């Protein structure tokens, strides 16, 4: 049983890690050096927030806009953290480490296990595996991206668009009208607003209480 949990954790770590290559490449394509791209993977360690950050930077947005986009994208980690608190109730400084490894994957693998011990193992093993592979892959992607030159020639801008669509996809089924609204607001306001701002404006459609299909 423990072995099964570990093998799931490592598979998820490798699968997720692989697309760290695209993050690294897209990060340097956005005009960031290798060091800040690596710091994003090491410190921010939250894929969607990292992609949002470099997306705004690539579009020429202000630092504050990039920070706000990344911040808003990270909101769901709070709910994973609350779920994990109610499961394991960690106390003291260990919570700092719990928090850093609280991401989509560690929460999902943990939730899928049976029994407290396996759930805990699933959380730590997946968090650690994703952290290691994600950072290794980011480094590879950033170094390779640096060698490749023009992002348009390699279609990395198209890869980034596909990457966001892939993250959105599992949520489309329940939230289709909301997604269309966010998409439309960003697109329509784009020619009239400073870079990055249309993304934040689109976030305000979330204030409308669209009912999610269950």
């Amino acid at each position, binding site marked *: 049983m423990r072995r099964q949990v570990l093998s799931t954790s490592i598979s998820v770590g490798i699968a997720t890690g692989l697309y760290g290559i695209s993050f690294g490449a897209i990060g340097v394509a956005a005009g960031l050096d290798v*060091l800040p791209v690596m710091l994003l993977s090491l410190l921010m360690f939250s894929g969607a927030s990292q992609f949002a950050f470099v997306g705004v930077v690539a579009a020429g947005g202000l630092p504050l806009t990039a*920070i706000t986009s990344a911040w808003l994208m990270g*909101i769901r980690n*709070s709910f994973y*953290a609350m779920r994990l608190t109610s499961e394991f109730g960690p106390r003291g400084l260990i919570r700092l480490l719990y928090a850093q490894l609280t991401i989509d994957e560690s929460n999902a693998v943990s939730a899928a296990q049976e029994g407290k011990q396996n759930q805990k193992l699933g959380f730590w093993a997946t968090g650690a595996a994703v952290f290691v592979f994600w950072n290794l892959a980011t480094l590879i992607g950033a170094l390779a991206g640096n060698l490749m030159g023009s992002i348009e020639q390699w*279609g990395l801008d198209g890869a980034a668009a596909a990457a966001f669509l892939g993250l959105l996809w599992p949520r489309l089924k329940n939230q289709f009208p909301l997604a269309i609204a966010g998409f439309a607001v960003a697109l329509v306001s784009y020619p009239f607003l400073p870079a990055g701002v249309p*993304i934040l404006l689109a976030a305000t459609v979330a204030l409308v209480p669209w009912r999610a299909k269950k």
Partner: protein
Amino acid sequence: MIWTVIAASLAVYSWKILGYLVPEKMITPGFRDFADRVTVALLAALVAIQGFSLSESITLDARAVALGVAALMLWLRAPYILVVAAGALVTAGLRFLGF
């Protein structure tokens, strides 16, 4: 840029640590739904900007085709990494052909 990255990382971390510090009952289901909606709206906006923006206007180019191919692959349940790779391949390929 380093400081912007560090500030943004702290901002993202604030959500994570908050979840371990705030008593669960302070968070209403309504707020939880709102958080889900923010994620969806942001991702949809990022698809729009990344796929259709061109300096100061919007446009249809190779990326739109790449998004179509990506959507088809996602619908067929292709692995995420292949979808991203196809996004690059289709975009680069069409540009190479002069579109």
